[in-house]
């Protein structure tokens, strides 16, 4: 039995929890450029480097593009690197994201989920990271500050696994997680050190083994490298599960791998969520259950690699399912919905799905909003070509009447 009581508990924000997780992971290089609501992470890290509690090189860069470039430089000489960003900053480093994943550099980055301009807004939604889904980064969405800290440590373990060597993005909902204070348990350094061995990589530039790095290829060899990236990402699924299992054995907390379920076993109506809104959905499930409605929540933790099998297993038993996207791909639907539907397309029983687009630009999603989603799921029309198509994507909690 693990005695976690001796561990220190601190009252910190999600940003600070990430900074604590980073310090415990002993990165050698941190490249930083501040952007709201991520700023506190890099502020805390600079303080830790300044007071000597974190032995790392802290590089002030002039932009997010440079933050990613500096992290790549660090990773290419075998250093463990960290950076953090948000929103426009993530898009500004987009070129670098593909470079890092193509170069198989296991950089860990925290992204504070924030909406994209225009209209300009500092508040949260998932449109920044969802638009980077194809950049070859592992993407996890955390629900609370504890998961943020724990996943920072796990991120290095997963990203640096020799079969993975893929960069890792930890997504925290802007303000809802980054700026909300919670009681967080801080693992002990000694235990983290034994969970997370020092970084080693075959792609290390050094005087002993001079390398040509980041070379170009002709069409005759390019696809092989892309296949490798895809395979590494697929293989990371088992590594993620193993990292979670060993983490829970050592620290007493499990996040159940690629997805987490709440009351899904006998659920007839399942809502798929990602990030902090999962907590709200858990409460809504409780109130629905009191009313005798068999509701459940499937928390999608990883968007890449995508937990296709898990989703198929869990959702194919439902009467209907909803996907709550804090994102929309204009002209179609939410990106999570598309991905979930694709996973289900291989199953014999393909229940009816509805897409709830909510939370854009920081719009609140209340327990009541989610209760209404479950009620809508009960009424989900089953004719595929009429009402269903028309009503399957709906905007939650619009402030105005849109029935023009």
């Amino acid at each position, binding site marked *: 039995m693990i005695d976690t009581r001796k561990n220190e508990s601190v009252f910190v924000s999600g940003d600070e929890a990430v900074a604590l997780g980073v310090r415990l992971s002993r990165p050698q290089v941190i490249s930083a450029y501040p952007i709201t609501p991520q700023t506190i992470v890099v502020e805390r890290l600079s303080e830790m480097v300044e007071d000597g509690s974190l032995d790392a090189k802290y590089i002030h860069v002039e932009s997010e593009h440079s933050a990613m470039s500096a992290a790549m430089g660090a990773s290419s000489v075998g250093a463990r690197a960290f950076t953090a960003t948000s929103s426009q900053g993530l898009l500004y480093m987009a070129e670098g994201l593909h470079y890092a994943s*193509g*170069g*198989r*550099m296991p950089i860990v980055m925290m992204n504070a989920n924030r909406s994209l301009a225009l209209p300009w807004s500092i508040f949260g939604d998932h449109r920044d990271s969802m638009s980077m889904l194809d950049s070859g980064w592992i993407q996890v969405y955390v629900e609370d500050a504890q998961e943020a800290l724990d996943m920072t440590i796990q991120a290095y373990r997963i990203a640096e696994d020799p079969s993975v*060597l893929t960069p890792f993005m930890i997504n925290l909902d802007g303000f809802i997680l980054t700026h909300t204070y919670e009681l967080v348990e801080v693992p002990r350094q000694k235990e983290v050190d034994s969970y997370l061995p020092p970084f080693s990589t*075959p*792609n290390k530039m050094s005087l002993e*083994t*001079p*390398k*040509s*790095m*980041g*070379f*170009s*290829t002709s069409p*005759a*060899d390019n696809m*092989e*490298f892309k*296949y*490798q990236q895809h*395979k590494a990402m697929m293989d990371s699924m088992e590594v993620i599960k193993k990292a979670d299992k060993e983490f829970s054995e050592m620290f007493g907390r499990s996040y159940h791998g690629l997805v987490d379920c709440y009351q899904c076993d006998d659920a007839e109506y399942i809502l798929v969520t990602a990030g902090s809104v999962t907590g709200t959905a858990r409460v809504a499930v409780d109130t629905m259950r009191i009313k005798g409605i068999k509701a459940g929540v499937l928390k999608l933790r990883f968007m890449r690699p995508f937990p296709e099998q898990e989703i198929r297993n869990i959702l194919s038993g439902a009467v209907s399912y909803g996907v709550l996207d804090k994102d929309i791909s204009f002209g179609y639907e939410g990106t999570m919905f598309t991905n979930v539907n694709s996973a289900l397309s291989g199953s014999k029983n393909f229940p009816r799905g509805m897409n709830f687009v909510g939370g854009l630009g920081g719009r609140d999603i209340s327990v009541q909003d989610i209760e209404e989603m479950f009620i809508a799921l009960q009424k989900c029309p089953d004719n595929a070509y009429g009402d269903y198509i028309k009503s399957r994507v709906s905007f939650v909690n619009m402030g105005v009447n849109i029935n023009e």
Partner: protein
Amino acid sequence: MDKPELKDFTKPESIRDYPVGPSFYGGHLVSVNSGWRTFRPVVALDTCTGCFRCYLVCPDGVIAKTEAGKVAVDYDFCKGCGVCAHECPFSAIDMVKEDISE
């Protein structure tokens, strides 16, 4: 001068034989790379003082010192940019049009 030698590249049979990402041991050259040159730098050895400024400025690192201590351009990899000719303090390098009939 230690110059990497050209090695034949045969496409690996298995994906496992590819490096993990585009990273490989340094100096692995598989083909000459000079087909795009319009002008070639020609060093007038009687004017050249051996200052080796050209060696410092050549962006492709293809200027070297021969065993006799003279300046030599590796035409297999010179791209014909003319930086060496422009920078030579003694105007000892001429850019001569390549004869495409060769």
